[in-house]
């Protein structure tokens, strides 16, 4: 099942399959560690379309709601 990062529930995990946006946006995400093939887990989401918090490798990253919508992941269970 493919969801975007805002749809992923806290505690769920997924593998990044697509980042939708221009080269600049993709690069910005890549530099924060978000790129295709990476495993992410959702930690939490702030109220009212606030920032989404995810974990990739050893870092926690907060990204705005609009940006999180453009990162698609394939959900998996372990």
């Amino acid at each position: 099942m493919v969801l975007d990062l805002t749809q992923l529930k806290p505690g769920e995990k997924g593998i990044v399959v697509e980042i939708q946006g221009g080269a600049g946006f993709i690069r910005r995400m890549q530099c924060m560690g978000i790129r295709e093939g990476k495993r992410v887990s959702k930690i939490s989401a702030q109220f009212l379309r606030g920032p989404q918090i995810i974990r990739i490798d050893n870092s926690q990253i907060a990204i705005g709601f609009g940006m999180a919508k453009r990162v698609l992941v394939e959900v998996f269970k372990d």
Partner: protein
Amino acid sequence: MRKILLIGNPNVGKSAVFSRLTGARVTIANYPGTTVEFTQGFLRLGDEKAAVVDVPGTYSLHPTSKAEEVAVEMLKSGNLVINVIDATNLERNLYLSLQLLERDIPVIVVLNIWDDAKHKGIDIDVKKLEQLLGVPVVPTCALTGEGIHELIVRLQEVKSISYPARSDMQRWQEVGRIVEQVQKIHHKHHSLLENLADLSIKPLTGLPIAAIVIYISFQIIRKVGEGLISYVFEPLFDNLWLPLMAKFSLFLGTHGFLHDILIGRLINGEIDFGQSFGLLTTGLFVPFAMVLPYIFSFYLVLGLLEDFGYLPRLAVLVDNIMHHLGLHGYAIIPMILGLGCNVPGALATRLLEGRREKFIAATLMAIAVPCMAQIAMIVGLVGERGGQFVAIIFIVLALLWFTLGMIFHHILRGESPALTLEIPPYRMPQILSTVKKLRMRTEAFLISAVPYVLLGILIINILYTLKIIDFLATVFSPVLSGFWGLPSEVISALLVGFLRKDVAIGMLGPLNLTTKQLVISSTILAIYFPCVATFIILVKELGVKDMLKSALVMLFVALFVGALLNLILPAYL
């Protein structure tokens, strides 16, 4: 002289390495973007003296953002790069390392935060990494100083190597290939700190935690500040300094020009540290006995919060609110720093992306975020009349902060950019480095404040003697008394307020103001203009044009708010 550049991702400990290498004093904290300015220091390498530059953090060398452009520009002038990387985030950090290696400059890699990597069950084969990269790799823990000696020794063997240039995609593939060969991760259970970290970022638990953190911080700042004043500084001044000054006053003949400048005017035949306004009385009492204790307690608490890593979490929690003000959550950092002193607050607006955001953040800070020196004086002076009056001032400023922000967001074209922020793990503050930072900031206050306070008092004494104050008082009396309901002598405080806000508030003391007048004039002093030190930084950061606009907003808001308070506050206050 050779120039060594410290380059790496944000919050990997570049400043900590820098401070270990050069002994220079820089602020180190656990959040990305602590360093917004280049800092240069010196390192002795055998007979040679080399310059070391602490470059603000960058994720890559693509010239897509300001920080990256600046880093690329710096690279041209450097002779050697110390690439600091976070051992707990090898993969993401190595991308920048490869970009650096592709350039024609010698590189040495520092694997910092090595101790944390071990605790987290991350094994990195340093020898293998050296082989794959072709440059020396030194594990360090800069906060404790481990590995720094080896780094200095191995700086000698750094040579330029040829490294194939790659495309973005190929670079990430190479990073993946390297990480696979050198890193092994043993699964470890969540530590207590990691659990606490998760709790403080989930809204249901995070918001109450934020409320508790802010409440406790406030209480500590208040109690430590008050304690230092009543148990240390006031007794010192009253029991040791006062008798000395009383003798000196007699020696000078209890009046006259020199007496008025050094000791000030006697109140009922005695020296009053709050009201005499001589260089040796009020001029020392204000910075040492009224302000310093709060500066100390504020920076004590701020330093602990910074080093623990709490601030980025607060930024995420307030992101929603900040978007209504045309900003994003990270703009809370310049506001918090501004509470200590507006100068670092103004510098920290560099953390924000666009011109619009910088303008909003800087203007809101200059208007509605009083610095600790000003707060301490308001608490000291207005607090004597009752805590509720201090509260009125801060509630007015808080409301202003929100309303003005919302107005700016509404009328200025553009939108608030989204937050992308790496949230560092919680780290136990290292007592030594926290104490060092506290000492640094307290000393910085004394060095910058005391001369200005004395200068302010000197100037005002001279202006009084030359009757210039009387002249200005007459000129500005329509605004002062007409709009704000203040006696025209308040002009002297507004004048000194350009220089230092703490003395300016202090000057309201001898004017025999009613409580209503005291509240209004303290509020106006906070709003109408930043102190000159902040002003200079803001001109640099915003440019002349935007700063002019910002200053006009300040003056207009001061006029308006002063008049409004004069209208709505009851006269019997």
